[in-house]
């Protein structure tokens, strides 16, 4: 019994781990192209992503967790959408909507500490949810391909974000546009001096647990998963899969909106030009590689944040390797996960070979 469960967990991890290993091998080639030493590069990458000398002084691990926080949330957002059968990649747009809402309410309203954060988070989640509702509705009512509609909504959101930043929310006429700094009552407290790592991460972890409980322990979550896995079956079972899909898109949007609020209240404390750096897409890849499981998304988000931070702070500064290396590697890893059948076929072959050998040995012993 226990053995079976272990085997299942092992199987779930096998393909992602093989994909990551393949990605790291490709990375060696990419580093070689740029002319930097390979072994040292890996060392620097590890040191600058998951190393830690002294907390608060030189601890990239804390920075990695801080970077991972919004990616965990957008990863959960994509996870919920995927589980309901919606291949939504609108996390980027929903994230931006949540961020703008948080940056605006952060300085525009005055509330006591504690309540202020709650109000902002609720409003940001609502903004993200509203933006997620649009493609959900279009898909269910009109069968508009959600991939196409969310891509376009992302592009629209980027322009809306820049417009709001440049005109209504702009604080002053400096070279790079930025909004007013949020009130002290709206800031999410941090744990250590000198790092922005704080309550945002706790919120993200709570969200991981919440999404897990919702999807696997509630009736509504069960309906959603059934709608995603077998919509025909769900229909015959009396599950309204349309409603489940729309609900999933609203929850998904709310989670991305939450990511925006956490990023603004916890890290930047305002929005500025260059704010959107692909956190939505990182979340998307985390959800794909995390096997549409909330805990998987959590692990992968931290891993990806580490790879990106390490290639930016370590490889770019030390060896002059372009920082896009991080993004390229995560792209390759997702590509390898997409090709999971390749690994599965070969794993099957290796297993068969072992089984045959074992059978042959047994036969020998019997004889």
């Amino acid at each position: 019994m226990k053995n079976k469960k272990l085997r299942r967990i092992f199987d779930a991890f096998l393909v992602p781990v093989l994909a990551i290993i393949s990605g790291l091998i490709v990375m060696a080639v990419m580093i070689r192209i740029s002319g930097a030493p390979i072994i040292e590069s890996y060392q620097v990458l590890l040191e600058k992503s998951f190393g830690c000398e002294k907390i608060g002084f030189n601890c990239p691990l804390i920075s990695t967790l801080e970077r991972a926080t919004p990616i965990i949330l957008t990863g959960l957002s994509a996870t919920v959408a995927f589980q309901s059968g919606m291949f939504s990649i609108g996390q980027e747009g929903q994230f931006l909507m949540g961020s703008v809402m948080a940056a605006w309410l952060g300085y525009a309203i005055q509330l006591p500490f504690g309540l202020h954060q709650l109000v902002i988070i609720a409003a940001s989640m609502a903004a993200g949810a509203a933006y997620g509702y649009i493609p959900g509705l279009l898909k269910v009512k009109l069968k508009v391909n959600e991939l196409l509609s969310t891509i376009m909504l992302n592009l629209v959101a980027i322009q809306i974000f820049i417009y709001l930043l440049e005109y209504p929310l702009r604080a002053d006429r400096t070279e790079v546009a930025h909004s007013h700094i949020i009130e002290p009552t709206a800031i999410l407290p941090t744990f250590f001096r000198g790092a922005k790592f704080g309550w945002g991460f706790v919120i993200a972890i709570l969200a991981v647990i919440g999404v897990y409980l919702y999807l696997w322990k509630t009736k509504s979550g069960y309906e959603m998963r059934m709608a995603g896995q077998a919509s025909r079956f769900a229909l015959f079972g009396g599950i309204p899969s349309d409603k489940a899909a729309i609900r999933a898109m609203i929850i998904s949007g709310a989670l991305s909106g939450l990511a925006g609020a956490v990023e603004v209240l916890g890290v930047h404390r305002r929005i500025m030009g260059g704010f959107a750096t692909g956190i939505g897409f990182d979340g998307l890849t985390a959800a794909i590689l995390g096997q549409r499981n909330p805990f998987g998304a959590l692990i992968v988000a931290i891993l990806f944040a580490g790879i990106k931070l390490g290639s930016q702070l370590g490889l770019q500064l030390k060896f002059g390797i372009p920082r896009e290396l991080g993004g390229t590697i995560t792209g390759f890893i997702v590509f390898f996960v997409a090709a999971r059948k390749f690994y599965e076929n070969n794993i099957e072959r290796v297993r068969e070979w072992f089984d045959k050998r074992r059978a042959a040995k047994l036969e020998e012993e019997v004889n």
Partner: protein
Amino acid sequence: MDGFLSVFTIELLNSGIRLATPVLLAALGGTICNKSGVLNMALEAKMLMGAFVGIVAAYYLNNSYLGLLAAMLAGGLMGSIFAFLYHRYNINLAILATSFNLLVLELTVYMMRVMFGNVGTWSDPSIERLPDIAIPVIKDIPFIGRIFSGYNIVVYASWAFVIVLYVVLYKTKFGRHIRAVGENIESAETVGINAKLIQSLALFLSGAFAGLGGAFLSIGHLKLFTRNMSNGRGWTGLSAALFGGNHPITTFFASIFFGYTEAFAVRVQNVTELSPQLVEVLPHLATLLILVLVAFRDKIRVSLARRKFRENLKKAVASQEEG
């Protein structure tokens, strides 16, 4: 009012056609794929790859026309990889396409920086922009000459491809096979059509079209490469193909529409005080709107077909009862 009317000039007509070209090429790629039953959501990646490979090849080979060829090959190769993985390992198309899109977005910038130093935008004076060609007779006709003449070879090629694709799809055996595979892959296979080969060829051609569209951006329209240069044009192309009902001729007009939306946006920015964001969002909003319209059209079509079917059924039942 005078300020607004000054938007509409003959330059607008020209730039509309220029801006429609990459969208049209992507849309033709989308058309041929959709016809063969594969929704090609990696057009954006193939286009961006074409833009990068096109300008790099033009730089190293000292010839922009060879750059175009290289871009088409790169796009086609990506299409073939796509087809191989899809058929051999039965991969989820949406995930595969997404991984392509993410990968190419980062990989092109990485390669640009590795090859040409840490720059955000790369260009080199030795690269030649594709020359504009005046068509001998047409260029002398007063108004029409200004509209239809004076573009580079890619623009004319894209027009030619529209006609070639129409002829291939509707007048040849190969085209019949493509459509048969797209309509119903099982029945196509039972009559002996090699569906996998057909889809692979469609994906190859589709990639080549998208790659050419990308090269038009980097060596035909501008003369540089920058991060995310295609900026959603591959997706717009796919939408244009859906809007055009996957028919080359109607897809052509859909692409022209998108080209003019973009040209209009650029032009409005030049002559009015409107904020650039409000204008830049226009092409994307237009694409969304078109997607919704397409969905409405399909819905109405289905309900009409259903009604007709019911009426026919009623008639058949009635005539049987009489007999």
